[in-house]
C-alpha cells in the first residue's frame, strides 16, 4: 500500500512537471498567436504548438528549437511562391498534419516545402504537399522518420521541377507509407546510408520513381512504382536490398522497371515487374542475387548491357515476356538456375519438376534487335521463329554457356 502510494505520488509529480514545463501553444487566426513564426519564437524547448484550421500565409519559418508542431484538420501554410516554407535546424522536432502549398521555384536554390538541416531525431508525418518545388528535403541529418505524407506535384519539365522526398548526406532515415506523384524524382537518395524505404507509392513522376546515387546499405521494400518516366534507377551503390516491390507500366524508349548501374552485392528478392518496356536494365553490376521475382509481360524482362559478373538468377518466374533475357556480348559469367520460363518448350520425362532439356533464354532475334532496332516489327514472325530455333540448336551469336540447366516445369509459388 505504501509502495503504491509512493508510485502514485511520483507519477503525479512527473505528470505535473511535464505539463508545467512543456506547455501547448495554440495558433489560430484570432488567437494571440496568429502566425506559426510568432509561436515558434515564443515557445520554449519541448513545447507543443497546435495549429488550428485556417490559412497562414508564411514562408521561411525556421524551427530552431526542439518543438512538436501539430496541425488540426490540416491547416494550410501558404508559401505564396516566395521561397521555402519550413526549415528545421534543431534536433528532436516533430511536424504533423500540415497542408503546405505554393513553394517558390528557383534556379539557384533548392526551395523545399520542408527542409531538415543538420538535425537528429526528427519526425515528419501526415503532411500534404501541393504546388511544390522540392517536397521534403533532408540534408546532413540522421535518425529521422518520414511517415504518411502525400506529395502531389505538378511538374511538367525536368529542368524546373524538384524531387518529392530528397535525402542528401543523411543516415538512418525511415521513409514509410508516403504517396508521391507528379514530381521529378519521387524519392531521391544521394550519399545516404542505412535508410529504410517501405510501403511507399511513387507514380506518374517525370523521371524516376526512386533514384539512388552513391548510397549504401539501404533497404527498399513493399513499394509500388508505376508509370514513371523511366522507372527506378539505382546507381553507384553497394549492398542495397530490394524486396517485394512492384514495378509497373513504365513504357517508353528509355524506360525501365529498374535501372541498375554500378551496383554491387545487392539482393533483389520477391519483386514484380509487370508490363515495362524493359524490366531490369543492368549495367556494370556484380554479385547480385535475383531470386523469386516475377517478370510478367515485359518487352524485355532483363537486358544485360555488359560488365556484369557473378550475378545469379535463381527461382524467378518469367511469364509471357517478348524477350526474356537480352545480352549484347558473347561472354557470360552469370548463373541462371531453377527459373520458370513460360517460353520453355522442353519436357520432363522423369517427372521431377525440372525440364530435361536446358533452356536458352537469349534468342538470336534479341541479338538482331539490339543491332537493328527496326527489326522489332518482325517479332513473332515464322521466319524469326525458324532462325531462333536454329540458333537454339547450335548457338553462334549468343553466349553458348548461357543456359538454365534446370528450368522448372511449373510456375513457382511462394
Amino acid at each position: 500500500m505504501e509502495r503504491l502510494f509512493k508510485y502514485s505520488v511520483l507519477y503525479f509529480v512527473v505528470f505535473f512537471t511535464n505539463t508545467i514545463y512543456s506547455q501547448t501553444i495554440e495558433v489560430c487566426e484570432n488567437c494571440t498567436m496568429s502566425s506559426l513564426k510568432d509561436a515558434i519564437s515564443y515557445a520554449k524547448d519541448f513545447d507543443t504548438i497546435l495549429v488550428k484550421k485556417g490559412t497562414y500565409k508564411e514562408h521561411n519559418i525556421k524551427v530552431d528549437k526542439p518543438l512538436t508542431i501539430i496541425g488540426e484538420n490540416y491547416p494550410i501554410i501558404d508559401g505564396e511562391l516566395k521561397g521555402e516554407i519550413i526549415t528545421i535546424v534543431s534536433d528532436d522536432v516533430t511536424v504533423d498534419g500540415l497542408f503546405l502549398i505554393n513553394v517558390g521555384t528557383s534556379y539557384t536554390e533548392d526551395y523545399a516545402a520542408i527542409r531538415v538541416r543538420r538535425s537528429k531525431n526528427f519526425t515528419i508525418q501526415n503532411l500534404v504537399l501541393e504546388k511544390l518545388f522540392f517536397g521534403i528535403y533532408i540534408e546532413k541529418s540522421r535518425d529521422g522518420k518520414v511517415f504518411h505524407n502525400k506529395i502531389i506535384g505538378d511538374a511538367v519539365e525536368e529542368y524546373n521541377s524538384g524531387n518529392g522526398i530528397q535525402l542528401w548526406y543523411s543516415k538512418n532515415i525511415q521513409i514509410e507509407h508516403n504517396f508521391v506523384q507528379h514530381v521529378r524524382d519521387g524519392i531521391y537518395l544521394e550519399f545516404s546510408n542505412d535508410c529504410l524505404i517501405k510501403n511507399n507509392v511513387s507514380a506518374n513522376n517525370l523521371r524516376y520513381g526512386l533514384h539512388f546515387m552513391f548510397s549504401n546499405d539501404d533497404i527498399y521494400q513493399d513499394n509500388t512504382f508505376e508509370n514513371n518516366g523511366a522507372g527506378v534507377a539505382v546507381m553507384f551503390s553497394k549492398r542495397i536490398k530490394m524486396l517485394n516491390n512492384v514495378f509497373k507500366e513504365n513504357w517508353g524508349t528509355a524506360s525501365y522497371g529498374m535501372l541498375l548501374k554500378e551496383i554491387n552485392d545487392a539482393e533483389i528478392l520477391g519483386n514484380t515487374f509487370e508490363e515495362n518496356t524493359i524490366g531490369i536494365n543492368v549495367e556494370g553490376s556484380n554479385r547480385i542475387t535475383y531470386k523469386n521475382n516475377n517478370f510478367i509481360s515485359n518487352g524485355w524482362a532483363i537486358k544485360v548491357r555488359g560488365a556484369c559478373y557473378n550475378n545469379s538468377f535463381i527461382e524467378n518466374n518469367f511469364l509471357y515476356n517478348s524477350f526474356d533475357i537480352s545480352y549484347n556480348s558473347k561472354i557470360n559469367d552469370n548463373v541462371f538456375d531453377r527459373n520458370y520460363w513460360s517460353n520453355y518448350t522442353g519436357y520432363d520425362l522423369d517427372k521431377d519438376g525440372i525440364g530435361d532439356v536446358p533452356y536458352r533464354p537469349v534468342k538470336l532475334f534479341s541479338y538482331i534487335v539490339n543491332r537493328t532496332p527496326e527489326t522489332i516489327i518482325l517479332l513473332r514472325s515464322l521466319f524469326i521463329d525458324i532462325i531462333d530455333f536454329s540458333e537454339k540448336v547450335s548457338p553462334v551469336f549468343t553466349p553458348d554457356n548461357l543456359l538454365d540447366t534446370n528450368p522448372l516445369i511449373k510456375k513457382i509459388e511462394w
Partner: protein
Amino acid sequence: MLKILKYSFYDLMRSRWSYVYFAFYLLLGVVLLFLNNDLSKAVITLMNVIIVLVPLIGTIFGVMYYYNSKEFTELLLAQPLKRSSIFLGQYLGVALSLSMSLILGLGLPFVFYGLFESSAIWDFSLLLITGTFLTFIFTALAFNIALSNENKIKGFGYAILLWLFLAIIYDGIFLMTLIMFEDYPLDKLSLVGTMLNPIDLSRTLILLKLDISALLGYTGAVFKQFFGTNIGLIVSLIMLSVWVVIPVLRIMFKSKKKDF
C-alpha cells in the same frame, strides 16, 4: 450472285473438307485451353497458328475448289448470267464457309471456357477478325492464280509458292534489307514493308495488343505514332480491306476477259 453463293456455300457445307477444317480448329481450341490454364497465353499460341495456317488453307482450298468445280462453272457460263456474279458467288461461298469453320471451330471452345467473363475477349475477337480477313485475302489470291492458270499442277505450284513467299521468304528478305540498310532511318521503310504483306500486317495488328511494351522500346517517332496510338489499328484494318478489294477486283476483271 446470291443464288450462286448459296449453291457454293451449301455445296461446301456438305463437303467433307469443311468438317475436317472445322474439327481441326475445334480440337486445337480445346487442346490449347486444356493445356494452358491461361486464356491470354492460348491466344498467343493461336495467333501463331492462325497466321501461318489460315493463309495456307485459304490458298489450297481456293485453288482446289476452282479446279474441281470447273465443269459446273462452264455449265453456268452457258446460262444468261453475269460472269462477275458467277465467280464472285463462288469466291464468297468458299471464303464464307472457311471463315465460318474458323470462327465456330475456335469460338465454341473459348466460349465454353468462359471467354465472355475474361479480359482476353478483345484480343480474341481481334484474332478472329484477322483470321477472317486472311481467309478472304488468300482465297481471292487463290482464285486469281487459278483463273490465270489452266494447268492444275502449275496452279497448285504457284499457290503453294505464294503462301511460302508471303509467310516465310518475304520476312527473310525484309530482315536482310533492314540489316543491310541499318545505317539509314528505317522506321518508314519497315512500316511500308509490313503493309505490303497481309500476313505481316495481321501479325502486327495482333502484336499491337500483345507486345506493345516491347514495340515501344524503339525510338522512331513514326513508330511511336503508329504503335502508341489507335492509328496503327485503323491503318492496319484499312490496309487489310485494301488487300481484299484489289484481288477481288482482279477476279472480276480477269473473268470478263477470259476465254473458256
